[in-house]
């Protein structure tokens, strides 16, 4: 059992390594394009809602805390509390997605679409591709991250149901531990996305 736990954990860490590399390529592409269009990128990032990004950062940090607590409760045989903390994590993730959805909608209303659909008027350098490129990266990276949040919500709801049934204990809590690891990575990626898109000038 001990060995299975360790083996699963190695598997999860390796999987997380692939996730880091996946996002890493996007970060590299973003950096290169920022280098190509410095002015457009600075101007474009000011169009994003900094308060929304900040709130979401706090929400995700709280959710990482509740995820840790869920693991702690699982390994100390407190099934009910484990389920509660898992649901809390799902709730935080839900708030995150709602704020994100609001942000996307209001971006679209201003014509801040990705790629060839970009139709915002009044940019300082009219006709430059830089704005559309910025928003393409913005929607791709936050979209891929959002997909991970949704997957995490699904996994955590499933675990919460299993926890209520009392399936986890100090003898066996591998899935809770692994999903929490995954969730921390999702949080961590946002910690990098947030300054990249909302803060850097």
């Amino acid at each position, binding site marked *: 059992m001990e*060995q299975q736990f*360790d*083996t699963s954990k*190695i*598997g999860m860490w*390796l*999987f997380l*390594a*692939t*996730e880091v*590399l*996946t*996002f*890493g*390529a*996007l970060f*590299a*592409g973003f950096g*290169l*394009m920022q280098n*190509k*269009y410095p002015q457009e990128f600075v101007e474009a990032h000011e169009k994003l809602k900094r308060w929304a990004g900040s709130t979401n950062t706090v929400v995700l940090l709280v959710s990482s805390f509740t995820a840790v607590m869920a693991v702690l409760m699982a390994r100390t045989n407190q099934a009910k509390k484990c389920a509660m903390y898992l649901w809390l994590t799902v709730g935080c993730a839900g708030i995150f997605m709602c704020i994100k959805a609001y942000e996307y909608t209001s971006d679209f209303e201003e014509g801040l679409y*990705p*790629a*060839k*659909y970009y139709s915002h008027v009044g940019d300082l350098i009219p006709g*430059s*591709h*830089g704005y*559309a*490129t910025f928003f*393409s*990266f913005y929607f*791709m990276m936050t979209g891929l991250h959002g997909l991970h949040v949704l997957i995490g919500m699904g996994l955590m709801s499933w675990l919460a149901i299993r926890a209520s049934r009392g399936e986890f204990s100090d003898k066996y809590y591998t899935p809770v531990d692994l999903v929490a690891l995954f969730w921390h990575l999702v949080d961590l990626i946002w910690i990098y996305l947030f300054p990249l898109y909302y803060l850097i000038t």
Partner: protein
Amino acid sequence: MEHTLTSGAVLGDRPRPVKNYLNETTGIWSWMSTVDHKRIGIMYLCAVCFAFLLGGIFALLVRLSLLNPQHTLFGKVWVTAEMYNRFFTLHGAIMVFLFIIPAIPASLANFVLPMMLGAKDVAFPRINLMSFYLWCIGAIMAIGSMVIGAVDTGWTFYTPYSTTTDGAVGLMTMAVFILGFSSIFTGLNFIATVHKLRAPGMGWFDMPLFVWGIYATGVIQILATPVLAITLVLLLIERVFQIGIFDSRIGGDPVLFQHFFWFYSHPAVYIMILPGMAIISEIIPTFSRKTIFGYRAIAYSSVSLALLSFIVWGHHLFVAGESDLANVVFSALTFLVAIPSGVKMFNWLTTMYKGNISFETPMLYALSFLFLFAIGGLTGIFFSTLAVDIHLTDTYFVVAHFHYVMMGGTVIAFLGGLHYWWPKMTGHMYSEKWGRIACALVFIGFNMTFGSQFLMGGQGMPRRYFNYLDQFQPIHAFSTYGSWVLGSGLFLTAIYLLASLKTGPLAPDNPWGGTTMEWESSSPPVVHNFEEQPVFEHEPYDYRHRTVTHV
């Protein structure tokens, strides 16, 4: 059935277990739902051999297209430039993504790696099966893209052509995306297996070198493949939405695609060659009856090749507008690759020195590997030299170089490994006589096909061109004749291997006198590999104190 051996192995007379992994359960569903690494390895073996056949047919068509500059056969023009573009694209894409990347790890290593560690299975048997089905889905999509319009971009999918051309590029890139995940799961599985499932008493430096090679491969599969996956997604989004990342007309940078692509695809070259080297490290000591020379040096060289593979991708872009500084740095780093490769070569040669060498089919393939990989590796040095590279870029010299590494290296090693473990996998011996004949045909045919391409490339014949000057016709024709010899050698191999399943004598447990743990199982192995948990007792390749058990 008497079976004489020249390698000096003592045959065990242990009776075969009645039940083994092949007949414990029967029926198609028992195979399709299996989590046994041996059965998955066999299914993968059939699958990659099918891909090899398909890619091989396209290779023969490419060569046939270039038989003469008029592209005629029996006086009639039979092929158009568009068809030719599709031939070489499909040959490249199928061989790289469907055959050579999974060829050794997912089939042969899947079968023998857990057994070499004395384990019952891989760490995640269900993920292993999922990897196989992902491969199948990817293969169906890749073949589907041929049906709906085919791909003519070359296997490298360079932008901006790949973002603007019609055809089934989208489906093909999705196929490669899925195949990438199949490869990631295989690598992930092997790394976890090596970490956690070694036999009691077996430390890291007690593992067979094959395991070291596959472990290093796994590291690359995990760290490089995600970058390819996201790059192909970006390519797809660029095609559909025009985000302006790779297409310079809408503000993108086509060279960025090349950076991303080769950040994966250069390490992928080591995903292909490291398992080949790993097989050679097994075959040579076994057929030299001698402890491997420089065990740690070979183990470390596998790991250092894996690490170096990540920092040399820029040598694919020497003429793509990279800065002079980047060119010089990548050139210097690329030279470094020769060091661990050379370490391996010299250690293999030294292992054979004063050994008791026997020349059975696997050893013939290993010796072919040494010869061909030396040429492939040394011509790589030509390309790391900036000035020479500019002359030789995109000529047939490149084609010849990487075929000497990929086919002369990996495929030859794959064939060697296939013959080496065939008795263990199937429980039957193949015909040694036909094995040697086929190996000779493959070796001669290969050198005819690709050796001649070094000459053509040196004289300036560009790769991928449909039309060419009359002066190259004799060499092109010679290369095409070579491909027929090569093809017939491979065809012959398929025939006698399949025939051995029906008519081959039953294989002993340890037909070659190998010292690694997989030979302690019966041939074919029982479902959980060993009747009892094997304990690590002697170092691998220890022929001095070797007592053959079960006599």
